[in-house]
C-alpha cells in the first residue's frame, strides 16, 4: 500500500465519524496546549525575574543581617530579621577599596494612606541619597531624598509607581500628603517603573529618609540591608571577601561563620532560577497528566473503531491486505489524530500563553524547545496508544472477522 493511499484511507476513516474524531482530538489538544502554556508561563516568569534582578544593578553586593547557609537560597526563612547590622558598618564598608557607593536601608511594611483615604499595604524603605545610584533607579517626576532631608529627619516621601497609582490613581501625587504609621509625609518625587518580576515588584514601595525611618518610625538603629555598589564586576569577589573580613572583625565573629551574609546578584538569580525551574517542572508535570488522559482517549476510540470495523478488516484481509497493511492503517489513524491534536494544541497553547500575559500580566515565553517537546510527546502518544488497537486489528482472523455481527 502506498503512502499516499494510506493517507487517503486515514482521512476517509477519520472524517466518516467527525464527532468522535473531534472529541478525541480535543483530549490531545487540551493536553498539548496546557503543556505549552505551563512551560511558557514558567519560562517567561523566570526570564522576567532574571532580567529585573539584573536591572536592579549588576555590580551590586547586598549585605544582609543573619547568616545564610550555603546551599540554602535567599528565599529560605526569615533570616533578614536578625539585628546585627548597624550604622557604623556602613562607614567601614565605605572605606574599602573598590566600593563606589554604599546604601544602607531599613525596610518595614506599613499601611500607607492618602488624603482621600485610599490606602495600600506596602514596603516602606528608609534610605540615603546613595540608594539611587546603588539600586539603579531613576526619578520620573519631582526629586529624590536629599542629604538635607536626611539630616533634618524630613517628613518627605518618594513613591514607587505602583503605590502612586494605587492611592492617587491618575492624579499627580507630587506635593500631596500621605500618612505612614500615623505620620504625615509630603510627596516630593515619583520613581520610574522597573517592571514587575513575577514574585516581587520593586515598584510597589515608598522611600523616606533613613534617619526619619530609624528615629521617628521604628525607633531602632538596625539596618535591614546594606547595598554596596562595586566599581567593576571582576572586583566583586575581592570586595566581597574584604567586606566579610572587615565586618567580622568589627562584630567580633568568625569570618567563616559570620552574623551577616553577602549576596551578589548572581546568587539571587541562581536561587530564584532554582525556584522557577522547579515551578515550571511542576506545572508541566500536571499538564503532562492531562496529555496521558488524552492518549488513553485515543486508545479507547481506536479500540471502539477496530471493534466496529471488524467486518471491514475481515474483508480487507480477504482481498489481500497483509497484517502490516492493517496495522499501519490503524496506527496511521491514531498518529493522525494526535498529530492534528498536537498542531491545534500548540496553537491553542500559544494563544493561552498570550492571553495569560495580556490579561493576567504574567510574562510568558513560548520556546521552540517546548513546541518540539510537545510535538514529540504527541507523536509518541499516538504511536504508543495506537499500537495496541492496531495490533489487535491486524491479528484478527479474516474468516471470523467476516462473520462478526
Amino acid at each position, binding site marked *: *500500500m502506498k503512502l499516499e493511499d494510506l493517507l487517503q484511507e486515514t482521512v*476517509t476513516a477519520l472524517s466518516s465519524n467527525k464527532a468522535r474524531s473531534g472529541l478525541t482530538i480535543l483530549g490531545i489538544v487540551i493536553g498539548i496546549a496546557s503543556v505549552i502554556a505551563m512551560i511558557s508561563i514558567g519560562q517567561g516568569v523566570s526570564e522576567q525575574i532574571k532580567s529585573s534582578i539584573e536591572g536592579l544593578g549588576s555590580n551590586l553586593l547586598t549585605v544582609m543581617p543573619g547568616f545564610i547557609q550555603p546551599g540554602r537560597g535567599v528565599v529560605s526563612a526569615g533570616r533578614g530579621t536578625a539585628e546585627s547590622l548597624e550604622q557604623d558598618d556602613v562607614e567601614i564598608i565605605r572605606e574599602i577599596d573598590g566600593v563606589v557607593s554604599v546604601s544602607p536601608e531599613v525596610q518595614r511594611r506599613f499601611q500607607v494612606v492618602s488624603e482621600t483615604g485610599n490606602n495600600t499595604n506596602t514596603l516602606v524603605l528608609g534610605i540615603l541619597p546613595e540608594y539611587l545610584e546603588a539600586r539603579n533607579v531613576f526619578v520620573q517626576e519631582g526629586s529624590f531624598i536629599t542629604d538635607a532631608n536626611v539630616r533634618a529627619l524630613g517628613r518627605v516621601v518618594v513613591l514607587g509607581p505602583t503605590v502612586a497609582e494605587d492611592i492617587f490613581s491618575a492624579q499627580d501625587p507630587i506635593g500631596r500628603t500621605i500618612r505612614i504609621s500615623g505620620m504625615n509625609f509630603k510627596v516630593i518625587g515619583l520613581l520610574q517603573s522597573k517592571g514587575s518580576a513575577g514574585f516581587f515588584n520593586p515598584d510597589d514601595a515608598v522611600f523616606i529618609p533613613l534617619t526619619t525611618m530609624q528615629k521617628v518610625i521604628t525607633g531602632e538603629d538596625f539596618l535591614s540591608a546594606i547595598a554596596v555598589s562595586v566599581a567593576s564586576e571582576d572586583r566583586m569577589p575581592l570586595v566581597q571577601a574584604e567586606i566579610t573580613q572587615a565586618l567580622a572583625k568589627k562584630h567580633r565573629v568568625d569570618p567563616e561563620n559570620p552574623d551577616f551574609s553577602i549576596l551578589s546578584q548572581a546568587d539571587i538569580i541562581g536561587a530564584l532560577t532554582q525556584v522557577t525551574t522547579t515551578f515550571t517542572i511542576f506545572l508541566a508535570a500536571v499538564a503532562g497528566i492531562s496529555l496521558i488522559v488524552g492518549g488513553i482517549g485515543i486508545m479507547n476510540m481506536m479500540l471502539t473503531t477496530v471493534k466496529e470495523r471488524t467486518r471491514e478488516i475481515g*474483508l480487507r484481509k*480477504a*482481498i*489481500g491486505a*497483509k497484517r502490516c497493511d492493517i496495522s499501519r492503517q490503524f496506527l496511521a489513524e491514531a498518529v493522525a489524530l494526535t498529530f492534528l491534536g498536537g498542531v491545534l494544541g500548540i496553537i491553542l497553547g500559544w494563544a493561552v500563553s498570550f492571553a495569560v500575559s495580556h490579561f493576567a500580566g504574567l510574562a510568558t515565553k513560548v520556546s521552540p524547545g517546548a513546541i518540539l517537546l510537545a510535538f514529540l510527546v504527541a507523536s509518541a502518544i499516538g504511536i504508543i496508544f495506537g499500537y495496541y488497537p492496531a495490533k489487535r486489528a491486524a491479528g484478527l482472523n479474516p*474468516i471470523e472477522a*467476516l462473520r462478526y455481527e
Partner: protein
Amino acid sequence: MIECKDISKIYKSGPSTSSGQAIETRALKNVSFKVSQGEFLAIMGPSGSGKSTLMHIMGCLDTPNGGQYFLEGRDVSRLSDDELADIRMQKIGFVFQAFNLLPRATVLRNVTLPLLYAGLSRKERENQAREALKSSAFPEEFWNHYSNQLSGGMMQRVAIARALCNNPAIILADEPTGNLDTKTGKQVLDTFQHLHIKQGRTIILITHEQYVAEHAQRVIHIRDGSVVGDEKVKVRRLANHHYET
C-alpha cells in the same frame, strides 16, 4: 488449475480444561477433486456440511490440517498468513453473501479496494475498476453513488466487480444469492454466467439450493465433510436465454 488432494480440516473448540480434552470437529475428511481452467463449478451441501470450510481453504483464507491444495500448480497449503494474503490479492476474487461493501464509500472506491494492496497507481486502479464494472454489467450512472444507497442486486454486482478487478484466476462466490430475492438473484446468476461464457472465467459457486447450483456446469455434493457426488449438470439452467450455445 485447482487440485484438492486428500484435504482434511479439524477444528478444535471448547475449553481446554484441566482434563485437556478439547472438542474436535472434523469439518473436512479427505476431500479430493480437480477444477480445470474456465470451469463453472457449484459446491452444494446443507449447512454444516463443510462447504464453507472448503471455500475458505480454496480461497486461501485458511490452511488444511492434512492433504495438499494446488492453485495453478503451486502447493499453497503450507504458506504463512502474509504469503496467503499475497495469493488472495493476485489469484482470488471473493463474492460474499452479505456483499461486505464499505458503506459511505462510492462504488468506484469499493471496486478499487483490492488494487490498493496491489500497489497500483490511482489511475491504473480506476481503469481496472471501470473494466470490472463493465464486465459485471453495472450501470455507469451509478458509479459514483455510495454503496449503501444501492439495492441488494446492485450491491452484489459491485461486489462481483470488486472480485474481478484484479483479474483473478478464480472467482469464489459464497451463497451470492442468499440475501437476494429470486429476480435479483437471477440477475446476479446471469452476471456469473456471462463472465463464464463470454470471458471464460473460472467460477466456484457455493450454495445449498439445487436451483442455483443448476446454473453451473458441474456440481460437487458435500455432506458431513466428504464429497458424496460429483456430476455434470445435465440440463443447465440459463438465467438469460441469449447465452444459449
